[in-house]
C-alpha cells in the first residue's frame, strides 16, 4: 500500500476515533497530528506494529514550550519514519505546564530512553514508567529546566561575573 497523508490519517482515525486524533496539518510535507496523553503510547505502538503502515523507526522526539497557552503550554513532539515506505509522520501531545506527565515509550523503543531523559532535563516532562528518569546533559544539582522560555539565555542570578570584564 502506498502511504499518503490521507490514507494514513484515515487509518489512524478509524483506529483511535476522532476524539483522540485532531488538528492534522502538513507544514512541510510531513503530516503532523495531535493526540492526547492517554492515546500516545498506543498510537506509537500501533504505527510500529501495523502490517500495512510499518512506521517503525522513531527518528526523534523533542519538547517545545509555548508560555501562556494554558492547557497547551507544553508540547512533546514525536517524529516517526517508515523505512519500508519512506513515509514520515509527526505526532504532538499538548499538556499544561503544571502537569507535564505522560507515559514513557521506552518499552517500545530503546532509543526513547535518552530522548526522554533529555526532554526531562530541559523541559521537565515526567515520563511515567521510565527506568531511569534523571538529568542527562546538565548537572544533577540544577534546580530548573533550562529550555523553558522563562529562563533567559544567561543565568541572571549569577554573581561571580564582574561586569567590567564583559563590557557591561
Amino acid at each position, binding site marked *: 500500500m502506498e502511504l499518503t497523508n490521507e490514507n494514513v490519517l484515515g487509518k489512524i482515525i478509524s483506529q483511535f476515533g476522532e476524539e483522540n486524533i485532531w488538528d492534522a496539518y502538513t507544514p512541510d510535507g510531513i503530516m503532523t497530528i495531535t493526540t492526547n496523553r492517554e492515546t500516545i503510547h498506543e498510537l506509537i505502538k500501533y504505527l510500529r506494529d501495523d502490517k500495512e503502515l510499518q512506521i517503525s523507526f522513531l527518528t526523534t522526539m523533542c519538547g*517545545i514550550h509555548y508560555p501562556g497557552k494554558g492547557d497547551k503550554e507544553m508540547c512533546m513532539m514525536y517524529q516517526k519514519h517508515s523505512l519500508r515506505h*519512506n513515509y514520515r509522520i509527526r505526532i504532538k501531545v499538548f499538556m499544561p505546564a503544571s502537569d507535564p506527565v505522560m507515559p514513557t515509550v521506552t518499552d517500545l523503543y*530503546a532509543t526513547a530512553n535518552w530522548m526522554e531523559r*533529555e526532554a526531562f532535563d530541559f523541559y521537565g516532562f515526567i515520563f511515567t514508567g521510565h527506568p531511569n528518569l534523571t538529568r542527562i*546533559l546538565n548537572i544533577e544539582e540544577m534546580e530548573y529546566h533550562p*529550555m523553558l522560555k522563562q529562563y533567559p539565555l544567561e543565568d541572571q542570578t549569577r554573581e561571580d561575573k564582574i561586569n567590567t570584564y564583559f563590557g557591561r
Partner: protein
Amino acid sequence: MATENKTAKLTDLEQFRLDNGLALKEEPQLTTLNLGPTHPATHGIFQNILQMDGEKIVDAVPTIGYIHRAFEKIAERRPFYQITPLTDRMNYCSSPINNMGYHMTVEKLLGITVPKRAQYIRVIMMELARISDHLICNSILGVDSGAFTGFLYVMQEREHIYDIYEEVCGARLTTNMGRIGGMERDLSPKALHLIDEFLKRFPKVWAEFEKMLTRNRIFIDRTTDVGAISAERALSYGFTGPNLRATGVDYDVRVMNPYSSYEDFEFEIPVGSKGDTYDRFLVRNEEVWQSLKIIEQAYKNLPEGSYHADAPHYYLPPKQEVYRNMEALIYHFKIVMGEIDAPVGEVYHSVEGGNGELGFYLISDGGRTPYRLHFRRPCFIYYQAYTEMIKGGQLADAILTLSSLNVIAGELDA
C-alpha cells in the same frame, strides 16, 4: 571420617582460606573501573563507570554532558546566520555537512531554490567532509588496535582536504561554510586544482591504507564479533548511518530522501552483515570509495551558472555592491544586524551526516530567530547502545567498539 576425607581433597588455596577463617568458596568480586572522562583511548570526553569481573565487563554506566554548550538554547536567541557556527561545533570532523544541512533547513523554511551549480559544490564539499570523517574513524580504529602508521599516513590526506576547505571558505576545522541560499563564493581555479589533485592522489593512499588493515590477521582477530549488534536492536536504538548499515539495513538519507541533487549521482550503499566492529570498518572504507565516486562525477559535470540563489533578503550581497548600491547596503545592514524576519513555519530536514541522519527540526514564529531549533544528533541517539554492546566483552574490546562507533563528543553533547 567424612570430614577428614573432605579435608584431604582441599587444595592449598582452600586450606589457606580455611586456616584464615575465610569462606571456602570465593564470592565473585567486581572491580569498579572509571574509564574517562579524559582518557587517551576514548577520543573525546566520555565517562563510563565499568563493573569488571577480572577483564570482563559486567556493567557500564555512561555519563555524558561534559561539553554540553546549550546550542538549542543559544539558537533561540540568535538570528539565522549566527547559528551556522554552532553547527560547526557539533560533529567537528565533518562540519561542512552540518553547515549545509542547517542552511538547507532554513532554505526549506524560506522556500528558496538553490541553483544546480551551488548544489553540486555543496555535494563536493559534503563528500569531502564524509571522507575526512570516515578517514579519522577508521585510522583511529587502527591506532586503538595497535597500528599507528596508517593513522599518520592518512592524516596527511585530511590536511589536504582541509586545504580545500581553506580555499573555499577560509577556515579549516570549524568551517562555517556556505550561506543560506548557496555558497559565499564560487570555486576558485585554485580550489578546482586542489580537488583535482586530491582525486588523483587519494585513491592510491586509501588503497594502501586498506591493504594494511582489511586482510590483516591481527586486525581481523581483534575486530570480528567485537561490539556486535543485531539489526533489530540497532533500529530500536535509532541507529542510522554507517553503524546501521553495518548491521545490514540499507538506510541512507542521500538515497531515500535525496537533497542537494544527490539523485543525479551514481553510487552504491555498502552494507555489512553482522554489525560488528569489522563490519563497521568495512562499511566506512567502502563509503570513502563511493564518496570519491560522487566527487568525481560532481567535479566532471559541474554545471555552469550562479553559485547562489537570488534571495536578496537572506543572501549577503557582494561587498563591492554594498559600497555602491543603496539596496545592497540596506540588505547588508539588515542581514548583518539580524533584522530580517523569517516566515512562520515548521520544517524538518535531514542530511546524511558522517554518523547518520543529522536532522534539524525548526519552528519559526515569524521572528528574527528560530522559536525552537532541535538537532537530531545521531551520536547522542546511538551512544546509548554502547552499554549493551560492550557487556560481556573485554575492556580492550570496549575501546575498539567506541572508536568504531565514531562517537564525536561535540555532537553527543551539543
